[in-house]
C-alpha cells in the first residue's frame, strides 16, 4: 500500500502563491504542502483555486512539464498529456495529477526516481514552445483588448468615457491593460527561465515561493474581483440600455434643457407644437459623469405649425455635455467631428461665423445636417433633419443652437 492511500476524502482549498508559469515556485509550493499532509487532487485546479486531499505528511516531489500543445479542452487530446507519455512516466514512477496554465503537473513519492526532464536544452525547447503560445496570446490580447476597441471607437476615448461613464470605461481600460501586461509578464518570465536553464543546466525545484506569495495572491484576488465587478456593471448597463430604463419620454419631461430644442428654432409665439406619435423616439436622458457633470441625450420628432399655417417638421437628435473644463469640451467636440468624418458619406457644410469657440457642420452617413459646437466647457452635437416643404436653413437653426450655449 502506498503512503497516499491513507488520504481523507475531505478537501482543502488553497490559492496558489504564484502564477502557473512560475515552474520553480509551483513545484516547491506543492512539495512543501505534501510535507504538511496536503496532496493535490486529480484535476485539482479550478477557477484559479487548488484543491487538496489531507493525508499523513510525507515527502513528495512535484514537477511541471511544459505542455507541447495547448491545454485547452478543445485542443488535441483534450488538453491532456499523450497516453504513451503517461505510461512511460508511470513506468518511471511519475503520476500525472493535473494541469495548470500551459503546464502538466506530475508527482512522485519515490526517492531516487528518474527526473521527468533530464536534458536542460530540451527542457528549454519545451519552454520555448509554451513561450511562443503565450506570446501569440499576448498579441491577441493586445489586439482584442486594446487595438480593436480603439479602432471600433475610432479613437474617440473621451467621447466614449462620457457616454458610457468614466468609472466604467477607466476600469475596463485598466483591466484590459492589466490582462495584456500579465500575458507579457508570462512571456518574459519563461524567457528568463529558459536562459537560466541554459546557463545553469537546471532549475531550482525548491525555490522560496513564500517571498512573493502575498503580493501575488493580493493582486490576483483584486484583479478577479474587479473583473467580476466590471462584468456585473456591463450586464447592468446592457440591461438598462436594452430596457430603455434611463430614458424619459419628452411628454413627461418638465425641465428646461440647456440648449435649443425644436421649439426654440422658431420665433413665432403663436405657433403650435406637437410631438410625433412615433413610439421609438421622443425621449431624453440626463445623466452625470466625472468628466461631464451635466449630460443630455435628446431625441425629438415633432411638428410645429406657425401662425401663417406653414409647418416645420422633422427630428432633432442632440448630445450635450457640460464638462469640467473647456479643454475637455474641445477634445469632445473634435472627437465628435473625427468619429463622423471617419464614417461613410461625410460631407462638409459651410457655416457662418457663430459666437462659439469651435463650430463644424457636415452631413453624416444618414444625410442629416449635423453641427458640432463648443463654447467654454459646453459642447453640443446635433443632427436636425426636416421633412417640411420649406425647411429652416442650416445657418438659421445652427445660429439658434449656438446662441443657446451662451
Amino acid at each position: 500500500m502506498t503512503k497516499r492511500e491513507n488520504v481523507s476524502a475531505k478537501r482543502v482549498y488553497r490559492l496558489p502563491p504564484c502564477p502557473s508559469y512560475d515552474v520553480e515556485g509551483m513545484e516547491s509550493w506543492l512539495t512543501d504542502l505534501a510535507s504538511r499532509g496536503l496532496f493535490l487532487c486529480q484535476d485539482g485546479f479550478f477557477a484559479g483555486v487548488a484543491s487538496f486531499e489531507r493525508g499523513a505528511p510525507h515527502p513528495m516531489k512535484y514537477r511541471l512539464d511544459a505542455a507541447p500543445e495547448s491545454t485547452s479542452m478543445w485542443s488535441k487530446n483534450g488538453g491532456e498529456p499523450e497516453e504513451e507519455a503517461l505510461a512511460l512516466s508511470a513506468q518511471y514512477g511519475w503520476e500525472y495529477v493535473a494541469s495548470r496554465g500551459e503546464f502538466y503537473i506530475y508527482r512522485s513519492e519515490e526517492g531516487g526516481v528518474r527526473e521527468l526532464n533530464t536534458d536542460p536544452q530540451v527542457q528549454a525547447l519545451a519552454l520555448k514552445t509554451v513561450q511562443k503560445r503565450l506570446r501569440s496570446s499576448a498579441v491577441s490580447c493586445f489586439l482584442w483588448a486594446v487595438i480593436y476597441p480603439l479602432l471600433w471607437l475610432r479613437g474617440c476615448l473621451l467621447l466614449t468615457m462620457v457616454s458610457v461613464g468614466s468609472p466604467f470605461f477607466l476600469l475596463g481600460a485598466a483591466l484590459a491593460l492589466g490582462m495584456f501586461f500579465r500575458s507579457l509578464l508570462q512571456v518574459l518570465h519563461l524567457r528568463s527561465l529558459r536562459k537560466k536553464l541554459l546557463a545553469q543546466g537546471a532549475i531550482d525545484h525548491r525555490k522560496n515561493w513564500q517571498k512573493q506569495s502575498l503580493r501575488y495572491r493580493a493582486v490576483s484576488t483584486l484583479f478577479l474581483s474587479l473583473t467580476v465587478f466590471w462584468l456585473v456593471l456591463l450586464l447592468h448597463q446592457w440591461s438598462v440600455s436594452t430596457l430603455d430604463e434611463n430614458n424619459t419620454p419628452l411628454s413627461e419631461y418638465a425641465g428646461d434643457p440647456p440648449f435649443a430644442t425644436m421649439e426654440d428654432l422658431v420665433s413665432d409665439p403663436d405657433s403650435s407644437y406637437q410631438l410625433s406619435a412615433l413610439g421609438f423616439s421622443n425621449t431624453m436622458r440626463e445623466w452625470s459623469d466625472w468628466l461631464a457633470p451635466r449630460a443630455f441625450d435628446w431625441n425629438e420628432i415633432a411638428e410645429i405649425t406657425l401662425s401663417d399655417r406653414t409647418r416645420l417638421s422633422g427630428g432633432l437628435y442632440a448630445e450635450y455635455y457640460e464638462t469640467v473644463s473647456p479643454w475637455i469640451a474641445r477634445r469632445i467636440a473634435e472627437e465628435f467631428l473625427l468619429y463622423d468624418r471617419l464614417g461613410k458619406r461625410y460631407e462638409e457644410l459651410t457655416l457662418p461665423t457663430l459666437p462659439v469657440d469651435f463650430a463644424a457642420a457636415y452631413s453624416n452617413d444618414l444625410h442629416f445636417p449635423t453641427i458640432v459646437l463648443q463654447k467654454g466647457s459646453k459642447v453640443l452635437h446635433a443632427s436636425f433633419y426636416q421633412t417640411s416643404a420649406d425647411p429652416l436653413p442650416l445657418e438659421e437653426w445652427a445660429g439658434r443652437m449656438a446662441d443657446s450655449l451662451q
Partner: protein
Amino acid sequence: MPKRAMAVLTESMFYVLMALCQEPMCGIDIAEFIDRKTSGRLQIGPATLYTILGKFEKEKYIREIEVEGRKRTYQITERGISACGQELERLRLCLADAEALIGKEAGPHD
C-alpha cells in the same frame, strides 16, 4: 545554445535518432534502447523524450507510422538520417581534434 535549435543535437536527441536508425519504435522502446545501449549512463526522462519526439516530428526528422492504442510508432526520415550523419561527422571531427590536441595527456592512465 545556437540560434537554430536543431543545429547541434544534444546527446539525448542524438540517441533518439540513433534508436530510430535501427528500426521504427515507439517512445517506450526508444527509452529502453537508450538505457540498454548506454548501460544506464544516459537516462532520458519521459518529458525530455516526448519533447524530442514532438520537435523531431515538427522538423520532419521522424514521422508517425502507426498508432496502436496508446502506442505511437515513429520512423526516421531521410532528413533525420541526414541530421544524424551530420552530427556523427561533427562528433568525429571534434573527437579527432581532441585526440590530436589533448589525447596523450587526457587519455586513460595505467
